């Protein structure tokens, strides 16, 4: 019943209480691999930040140069490891950087091959009309996150934030991370050039990580508001109950 291809124009209505297949296996596998990677990268990244909590613009930057930001000391409950250890923070960070990077690459290929991106993330012109944006905002404020007519579809804000995370924030975090490697600077000098130098890349890396951390927090809050059990199950088994 719910196996019909979502591109069919005339789908049977999926009323409240019906259980439908929400997320494909490519999305589900990547989601959890990536969730673990992002949390470990954020925690270990804050540990690394504690080693030199100053951010600069340009090619160089050290204690006697002008810092545009002095970061706080991040406390042990939020860093990996809890007790300051730059070497171990780096071990976590550089291992899970590979998980993040190759995971995203595999998901990109899978998302295109299964047409998940084209089908579910494409933002259509009618969704960007002022009336449509207002309607979606209204639904969000009423804590209703799905469209009754097409419950499986992502709403506009969901699409925008997923597109931003998938195609801007995560690739930028990876690219700016690559720019911090002196070995990769020799291999791919163009990365440093487009980012404006290593210390600029380091600053952008931190800002991008902050955006991803903010996304993660908002995402978790919305999952709870939308019904944590139902949302969790849909990301594990793929089965999602259309809310009342």
């Amino acid at each position, binding site marked *: 019943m719910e196996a019909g291809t979502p591109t069919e124009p005339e789908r049977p209505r999926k009323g409240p209480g019906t259980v439908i297949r929400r997320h494909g296996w490519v999305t589900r596998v990547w989601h959890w691999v990536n969730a*673990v990677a992002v*949390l*470990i990268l954020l*925690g270990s990244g804050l540990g*690394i*930040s504690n*080693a*030199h909590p*100053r951010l600069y613009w340009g*090619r*160089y*930057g*050290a*204690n*006697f*140069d002008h810092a545009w930001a002095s970061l706080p000391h991040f406390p042990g*409950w*939020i*860093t*990996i*490891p*809890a007790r300051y*250890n*730059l*070497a*171990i923070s*780096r*071990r*976590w960070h*550089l*291992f899970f950087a*590979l998980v993040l990077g190759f995971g995203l690459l595999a998901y990109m290929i899978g998302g295109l091959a299964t047409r998940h991106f084209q089908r579910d993330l494409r933002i259509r012109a009618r969704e960007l009309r002022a009336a449509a944006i207002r309607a979606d905002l209204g639904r969000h404020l009423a804590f209703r996150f799905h469209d009754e007519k097409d419950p499986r579809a992502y709403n506009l804000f969901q699409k925008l934030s997923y597109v931003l995370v998938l195609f801007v924030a995560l690739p930028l975090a990876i690219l700016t991370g690559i720019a*911090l*490697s*002196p*070995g*990769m*600077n*020799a*291999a*791919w*000098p163009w990365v*440093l050039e487009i980012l404006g130098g*290593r*210390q600029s890349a*380091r600053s952008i890396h931190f800002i991008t990580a902050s955006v991803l951390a903010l996304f*993660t927090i908002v995402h*978790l809050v919305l*999952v*709870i508001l939308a019904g*944590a*059990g139902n949302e*969790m199950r849909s990301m594990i088994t793929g089965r999602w109950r259309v809310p009342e």
Partner: protein
Amino acid sequence: MSAPIRRRTILTGGAGLLLAGCDRIIEQPTARKILFAGEDMQKGLQRALMDRGALAPEYRRDQMSPYFRTNGTRDPGTPEYAALVANRFQDWRLKVGGLVGTPLSLSLRQIGEFPARRQITRHDCVEGWSAIGEWMGPMLGNVLKAANISSRARYVVFTCADLYGGQPYYESLDLIDAFHPQTILAWGMNGRMLDVGHGAPLRLRVERQLGYKHAKYLMAIDAVENLSNIGLGKGGYWEDHVDYDWYAGI
């Protein structure tokens, strides 16, 4: 059926548990081994993507740091080193030995006779800061060739005048980086002779790796077949004592 409070706790608590769990996980030898294998993966990937002779970026004079900070040891402070400073390193010798056909004992003047490479490069500390400076000195590869390095040698070990825990600081490179054109034994910095704070009279520059590989206060260079008999076997002071990666290309 629904237990929203429990689920909420699981969901938000999950992130916190994961962070705390990481410290437990890494105590397991197997997990530690897997995590530490990331170094070999990064090294393998970088070496695959990088031309053997690919150069680190070089900069113009006007792009240099106005002030190049010192770090690590600022002065070895031993009586032996103080004596070397006192007569301007006249008695200092660099011993080149190990698996070489012609062991050398080079004075600063003799090192100055090798053709020098001048390079303005960026120094990246593992902690995160960067400074751009100008370095001058012979290519390490030329010194190793002058000593007739053996074909059995796989690594080059550097022993320094500064002490850590009572032992001289040490570091090592494999021959890919040892023979890289930008890997030099610098005796000059920013148009002057190298000062004590930056590693006088001679320090290593290995521009495709992080700062802790750039051994200062060089006393000896030894070609070896493997690193198992050096220090605790991981090839460097920080590698042996605080788990820093031996391959510091990232």
